């Protein structure tokens, strides 16, 4: 066997080693072996290396050639050789491996190694965010729940990790589309109800082991819970005063259902987006609201009128009382005084005809139609 002559000690850190180890060996070796043949180096390094592989075996080749390169520099200052030597020192030592050919062989192992390392890192180290928790599985078996930080697992395919957001509140909208969502109330009417469910994962292990399809189950259970709540109140309560209690009641029922399913989910709340009559009956219900506000307006107006009436009555009564007090003190004079004062006002503004003899016919001017009294002298002065 050709390979029998190999230094076994070197073989262990030869090809099996990756680039960095070999690179460290290069420098010292070059310094302690100054008397190697110059021609070896002048031939160039990388290009000629594969051609020589078959003759002395891989390790022999690499050890001999290394010192030759550095020894050459002061002796034969050929421009090509100098450049080649410079290049050889700069090049990664992988180029000296006996197998492979062409420039790609220098980088492929590096690239492969980097890919493997990156793969290892990606499947071994898992950052767990502030809101997250992780379960690390090793060959199927699950470890404990881990909090934020770095979760370590075996690399793929032995290890796996499941990371879930557990503190972030998730939202579920029912119905998911914008359409009508009619629920039956206790009195057989239909209410169009839409709501949002806020939920979180309470226990990641229970959640992962609990439901095969948590989203679907949650959606159906949310619908069932809301229907059971709405079916236990009358329609008027659903669209009116009962709205405030429906959400919490539905949340409570939903939580009970999910606990029965061991879903590992906590319901933070159920928020009603709308609780209305069906669109087709909306006009009738608007009319009810209009009637209600009209009735309220009417009551306010009646109250206002009532207050005015009573106030006026007490005002009139007070005025009468005052005049009557005066009348009680001097009845005849007060009476005549009031009579003449009134008559002055009455007769002063109206045309007065005094008929002396009984049986006299009086021709009165035709009555003035309303609105055309501008023709009348008296009215013209009224500042129409």
């Amino acid at each position, binding site marked *: *066997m050709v*390979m029998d002559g190999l230094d076994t000690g070197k073989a262990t850190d030869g090809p099996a080693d990756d680039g960095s180890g070999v690179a460290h060996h290069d420098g010292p070796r070059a310094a302690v072996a100054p008397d190697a043949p110059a021609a070896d180096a002048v031939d160039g390094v990388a290009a000629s290396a594969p051609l020589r592989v078959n003759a002395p075996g891989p390790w022999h080749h690499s050890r001999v050639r290394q010192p030759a390169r550095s020894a050459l520099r002061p002796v034969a200052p050929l421009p090509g050789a100098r450049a080649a030597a410079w290049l050889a020192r700069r090049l990664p030592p992988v180029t000296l491996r006996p197998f492979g050919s062409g420039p790609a062989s220098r980088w492929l192992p590096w690239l492969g190694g980097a890919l493997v390392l990156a793969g290892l890192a990606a499947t071994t180290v898992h950052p767990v965010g502030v809101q997250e928790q992780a379960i690390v*599985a*090793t060959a*199927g078996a*699950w470890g404990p729940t881990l909090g934020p930080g770095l979760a370590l697992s075996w690399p793929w*395919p032995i290890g796996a990790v499941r990371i879930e957001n557990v503190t972030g509140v998730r939202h579920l909208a029912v119905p998911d589309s914008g359409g009508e969502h009619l*629920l*039956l109330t206790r009195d*057989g*009417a*239909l209410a169009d109800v839409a709501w949002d469910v806020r939920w979180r994962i309470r226990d990641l*292990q229970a959640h*992962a*082991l609990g439901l*095969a*399809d948590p989203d679907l*189950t949650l959606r*159906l*259970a949310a*619908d*069932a*819970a809301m*229907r*059971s709540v709405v*079916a236990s109140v009358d329609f008027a309560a659903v669209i009116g005063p009962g709205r405030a209690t429906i959400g919490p009641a539905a949340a409570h029922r939903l939580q009970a259902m999910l606990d029965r*399913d*061991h879903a590992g989910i906590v319901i933070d709340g159920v928020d009603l987006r709308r609780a209305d009559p*069906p669109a087709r*009956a909306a006009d*009738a219900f608007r*009319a009810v609201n*209009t*009637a*209600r506000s*009209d*009735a*309220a307006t009417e009551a306010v*107006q*009646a109250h206002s009128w*009532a207050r005015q*009436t*009573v106030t006026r009555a007490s005002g009139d*009564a007070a005025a*009468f009382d005052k005049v*009557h007090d005066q*009348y*009680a003190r001097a009845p005849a004079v007060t*009476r005549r005084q009031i*009579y003449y004062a009134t008559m002055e006002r*009455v007769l002063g*503004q*109206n045309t007065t*005809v*005094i*008929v002396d003899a*009984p049986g006299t016919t*009086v021709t*009165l001017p035709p009555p003035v139609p309303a609105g055309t009294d501008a023709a009348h002298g008296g*009215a013209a002065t009224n500042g129409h």
Partner: protein
Amino acid sequence: MVIDRRVPLSAALFAMAALAFAAALPVPPDRAALVLRLGQPVRLIDPAATGPAARASAGLAWHMPLVERVVWLDRRAQTTTTQGLGPHSAAIATRDGTALAIDGFAVWRVTDPVRFYQALGTPADADEAMRAMLMTVLRRQVAQSDLPAVLALVRAGGDAALRAGLDREIARYGATVVDLGLSRVTWPDGAPIDGAIATMTARADADAAAITAEGHRAASLIRADAEARAGQIYAASFGKDPEFYDFYRAMQSYDAAFVQKGNHATLVLSPDNTYLRQFRGK
């Protein structure tokens, strides 16, 4: 030709690794592995059967590649619903003849993976069969109940009888019902829903009319009450001297009737008028 002696070594190692990889059977706690040897179930690796210790008992198991095939059965709770089959699933008639559109869902779990697999396949395959059974149980229960009973069922969010009904059906296939709910109960589309809405509209119209009438009544009462109080005040004051009140009120009335702005009447007075008493010089 020189052969690197590491080639057969690495080939052997690679073959062993490949074999180990093919034979390894990592069983997670949420699934059961049913191992079939040439189609014959030979063993079941089921961490969930250990109950709460499922997490601990899960892990690496082995099987023979090629000869043995593994069927995975989800041990988590499955959800089957009758909803979303078509635009709307068919209506179910109650005992008193009212048609209702009802959809339910069942949360169920495999209890006996071998029996379940032999009867229905994997839980994913069984969805169709489960759905049919759920529909049957729902129909039977609704057909036996009248409308108030069905509405009571909705209020309760499904009930024990319904759950037990489905449980009886699926227990023979090695599964059990965890939960059962009604996710949709409403009037069927078309005439029933139109009728319900028409009833609601009529009821709302009646409500509006009643509210308007009630508003009128309340306003009338308020006005009548005020008038009564005003009358009371007047009576208390004017009743002291009705004769003077008559005079006083007449004077006010003349003022109101004749001394209006823009009012012009022709008054014909007899010389006997009291006002003209002094005019005659008597």
